[in-house]
């Protein structure tokens, strides 16, 4: 790679904002990978639309992180010039698209969480975060609706769609616990009324997930062992491949524009 990665001064608020921004960028990028490959044209558009929603969220969050950090970084540098270990997204969101069921289950698990999360963040004492949350909540509400409808149809559809949906749930379940974990820095922001305490959202999230999954005649795994690491930069092997594609232009031709 031709361009070195940037240094980021990860104060608690910068780190907190980057984590949400990385979530949105990485999931948005994953959805964009479906463009031209979705099972039908209608779904191709829907997935790209949701990807663009997430990209918009990422841009606002990166810009805010850059402002808070005040070290001359910007949204593009955060997106294009950080290495794998500097990314702070949830492991769930970097998991490959797999089949359509995997993509929808991943979307469903996250949207059910994100919708609650943004709604809670609208009450943040940080006005900028509250404003970003207010805009994002309407988007995540639709992502939840869209993915829920698909979970119902895949689970309660054909034998094959049911089997694929159940496999996707079994494969991705262990990545859901990370959504509800916080570290000390984030805990301080929660106490200050800036950040959202995800633990307070867990029961509602589980209720939403359980009701859709049960109605879809699917089941949640019994195991409560949860994988973690993304929030502190320890990622699965998939993220490096994703970033090599996402970053290749800026790494090869620094500062290139359309």
């Amino acid at each position, binding site marked *: 790679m031709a361009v070195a990665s940037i240094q980021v001064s990860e104060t608690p608020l910068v780190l907190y904002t980057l984590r949400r921004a990385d979530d949105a960028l990485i999931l948005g990028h994953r959805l964009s990978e479906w463009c031209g490959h979705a*099972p*039908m*044209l*209608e779904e191709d*558009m*829907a997935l790209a*639309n949701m990807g663009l929603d997430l990209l918009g969220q990422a841009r606002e969050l990166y810009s805010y992180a850059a402002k808070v950090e005040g070290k001359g970084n910007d949204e593009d540098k955060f997106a294009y010039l950080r290495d794998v270990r500097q990314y702070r997204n949830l492991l769930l969101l970097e998991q490959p698209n797999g089949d359509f069921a995997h993509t929808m289950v991943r979307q469903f698990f996250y949207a059910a969480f994100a919708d609650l999360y943004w709604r809670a963040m609208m009450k943040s004492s940080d006005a900028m975060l509250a404003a970003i949350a207010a805009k994002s909540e309407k988007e995540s509400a639709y992502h939840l609706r*869209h993915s829920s*409808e698909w979970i119902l*149809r895949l689970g309660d559809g054909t034998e094959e769609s049911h089997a694929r949906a159940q496999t996707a749930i079994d494969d991705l379940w262990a990545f859901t616990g990370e959504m509800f974990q916080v570290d000390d820095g984030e805990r301080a922001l929660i106490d200050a009324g800036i950040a959202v305490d995800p633990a307070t959202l867990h029961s509602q999230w589980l209720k939403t997930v359980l009701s859709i999954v049960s109605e879809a005649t699917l089941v949640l795994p019994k195991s409560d062992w949860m994988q973690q690491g993304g929030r502190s930069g320890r990622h699965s092997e998939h993220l490096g491949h994703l970033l090599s594609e996402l970053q290749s232009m800026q790494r090869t031709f620094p500062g290139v524009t359309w």
Partner: protein
Amino acid sequence: MATPNTPLWEVFIRSRNGLAHKHVGSLHASDATLALQAARDIYTRRGEGLSIWVVPSSAITASDPAEKGMMFEPAESKIYRHPTFYDVPDEVGHM
């Protein structure tokens, strides 16, 4: 890619300033709920609409193009049906 067993739906949108729902196009979806979602994603991406209707294309009964003459030509010679022979007062406004 082929989309077997997915019925066709006609989409109608009422725009921000529009008075009635207008036909905007069609799409494939397995049921009404998904058709409504797909219509939202395909036809309102640029803020076009405030309300969407989806109707199964199979529910539409259409006139036969071969009967065009019988159906529509008799109306063409009856210009007196157009309200152009009297002045509409300005106060009436939009008609």
